[in-house]
């Protein structure tokens, strides 16, 4: 199916009643991962350090905000990866690095095998067609002085894809795809509601028929009822056009619905990454468990079987001076001495499940002894162990390996 043949669903006419029903009311089931698809995007040890300058004339660099510090993941063709975490954990920065609004400090961003991490503006221009972005705030993402037609048609004019006369029909077609009246092309953004504006932003991002869409909190600025509509629209688009998504959000329920794979970030690092089931039903990192316990659950509230909320103590530490070792240890309920000495490697503990913790385990079942001491070649307190040698195969890779450490069976798992 092409853009031309696509007729939008009637997703907008529904008035969903409760949050639990909202995401499925339009007949959109939770997204499923495409099987055996090749990675379209590989991010490898991506780092972004923003320099902190001293005030005054000399403006020396006095430190760095380690916004993103060694993040690796994959997005498969037509798939979607959710990136969750609290404010300031670097998820938006990651999105802006991938779209190359920022140039990373180090690391690689391989898009269709080509490293674009340090590509120059001229090399980037053809790539801009393939990677587009949906922005968070529909009130600032559209130029208030341009008509909707000018906004959506701008990419076509810049890339000279269509002759001028064909731009308007294409703009109207895109408006129709996102469920807006195609006659509204000569209206201004201020005449639309937040949800409609977000649809305009989505239409704009689709103009160049991208292969990867970075959605930076695309629904967090919207009403809850509108959120569901927009998420369903994004799902329709993904299904029809096979666009891959990097879906950045802090709403775990939305991510659960939209993304077959989820990465949890904390203070610039991925602490746990895996498929939907591993993260939502089998979380092994204490931070993921705390996040999940904070999600309100209508069904549990009704039956009274509400699980205990895990309260994290204190604030997120400053990314200018993050804690030594594991960055989460200052707020972690199960942190021990080794956590301050060594950063936990991102261990693969399932076929599609990795976790960065010295004591990975289901809620309440965390091991007493650090599982990583042998791999790091240290004793249980994290001091160097002369008897042990550090494992050499701890190199973090963007994707998942064929073998993993099965924590339940205490063996090496294989595909």
């Amino acid at each position: 199916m092409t853009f031309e043949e696509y007729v939008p669903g009637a997703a907008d006419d529904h008035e969903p009643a409760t949050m639990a029903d909202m995401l499925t009311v339009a007949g959109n089931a939770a997204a499923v991962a495409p099987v055996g698809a090749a990675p379209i995007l590989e991010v490898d040890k991506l780092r972004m350090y923003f320099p902190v300058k001293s005030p005054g004339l000399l403006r020396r660099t006095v430190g760095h905000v380690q916004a993103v510090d060694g993040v690796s993941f994959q997005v498969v063709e037509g798939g979607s990866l959710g990136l969750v975490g609290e404010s300031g954990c670097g998820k938006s920065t990651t999105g802006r690095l991938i779209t190359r609004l920022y140039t990373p400090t180090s690391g690689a961003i391989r898009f269709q095998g080509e490293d674009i991490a340090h590509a120059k503006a001229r090399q980037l221009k053809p790539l801009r067609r393939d990677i587009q972005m949906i922005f968070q705030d529909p009130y600032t993402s559209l130029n208030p002085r341009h008509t909707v037609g000018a906004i959506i048609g701008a990419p076509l004019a810049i890339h000279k894809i269509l002759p001028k006369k064909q731009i308007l029909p294409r703009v109207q077609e895109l408006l129709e795809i996102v469920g807006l009246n195609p006659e509204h092309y000569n209206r201004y953004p201020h005449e639309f509601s937040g949800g409609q504006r977000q649809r305009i932003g989505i239409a704009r991002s689709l103009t160049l028929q991208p292969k990867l869409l970075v959605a930076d909190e695309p629904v967090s600025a919207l009403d809850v009822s509108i959120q569901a509509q927009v998420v369903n629209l994004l799902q329709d688009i993904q299904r029809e056009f096979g666009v891959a998504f990097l879906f950045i959000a802090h709403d775990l329920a939305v991510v659960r619905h939209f993304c077959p794979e989820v990465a949890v970030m904390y203070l610039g690092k991925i602490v746990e990454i895996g498929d939907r089931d591993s993260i939502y039903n089998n979380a092994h990192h204490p931070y993921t468990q705390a996040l999940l316990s904070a999600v309100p659950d209508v069904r549990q509230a009704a039956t009274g079987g509400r699980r205990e909320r895990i309260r994290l103590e204190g604030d997120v530490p400053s990314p200018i001076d993050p804690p030594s070792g594991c960055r989460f240890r200052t707020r972690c309920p199960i942190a021990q001495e080794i956590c301050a000495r060594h950063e936990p490697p991102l261990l693969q503990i399932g076929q599609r499940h990795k976790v960065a913790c010295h004591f990975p385990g289901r809620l309440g079942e965390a091991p007493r002894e650090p599982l990583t001491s042998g791999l790091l070649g240290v004793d249980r307190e994290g001091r160097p162990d002369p008897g042990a040698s550090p494992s050499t195969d701890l190199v973090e890779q963007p994707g998942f390996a064929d073998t993993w450490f099965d924590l339940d069976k205490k063996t090496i798992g294989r595909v």
Partner: protein
Amino acid sequence: MTTTVSNLESEGLPDPTGHPDEMDRGKVEGKSPTRLAIERFRKDRLSMVSFIIVALYILGGILAPFLVKFGLLDPTSYHQDLLNEFTLPEGPLGGISWKHPLGVEPGTGRDVMSRVWLGTTLSLTIALIASLLAMAIGTVLGIIAGFTGGLTDGVIGRLIDLTLSFPSTLMLLALSAPMYALLTKNFHVPEGDLAWATYVVVFLAIFGWPPIARLIRGQVLSIREREFVHAATLFGASRFRMYFKEILPNLWAPLLVSFTLLLPAYISAEAALSYLGVSIKPPTPTLGNVLRDSLNYAEFDFVYFFSPAFAIALIVVCFNLLGDGLRDALDPKSNR
């Protein structure tokens, strides 16, 4: 001003053939932010009055040369016959008559209305060109400084500081003779009024752009962090497109307001410079020239003294009110 960039872009697009089966169809025309601002402006009576007066001034300014050509205005002929033995105008109120509605000049008997009218034209022209130049320099440098940041921003920022720290009035006086010589000899500007006018325009523009650049830089700093600028980057928008199509249309409000406030300042400045003798010289009338001459007769000929002063005061006040009105109309969030 009535046409924004966006209007231009949607012009020439073919009329859509609507789908008749839906309501809400038909010709849907959006109101641009500019259109809304004009509607707000129209409701403001004081601004509308000052707008009309300003428009009359401009219209009068455009007409003045033609009126002189057809002999309706005559700023140069002497009418010694209308003066008494003390060379003051005969008759009440400085010799007001049908032929000379504002009386005649003491000493020479030239028509006061003609001199004030033509003086206004010249002063307005000089102020207009100077402020347009200052706005252009300030806007371009402000956008570049604000959007590029880093070293470029620093260099432009220091340039602004440097320009502002110059004792401009003193320099204007001190440099007038050598600059006049330079303009006439090296740049082949015809001697006389045109060379003096050029000197004043260039000087006012060179020392007038820094505040504009600062204002625009500040605005751009906030605009460039908005997401539509990121979106334009993602489409591979060129620098030119970024500056003039994405950012500039969002600057019309502050630009228009600062223009309507800069222009009256330049009218006063030009009058002051004529008074000090570094602008267009007599006998060509400018508001400053007429004012300087009229000060000698402040005691004896009130109408003559009052006319140029009133002409300056009225246009300056009206332009300022217009600027305030525009500010309110363009920014609906501002409180009055």
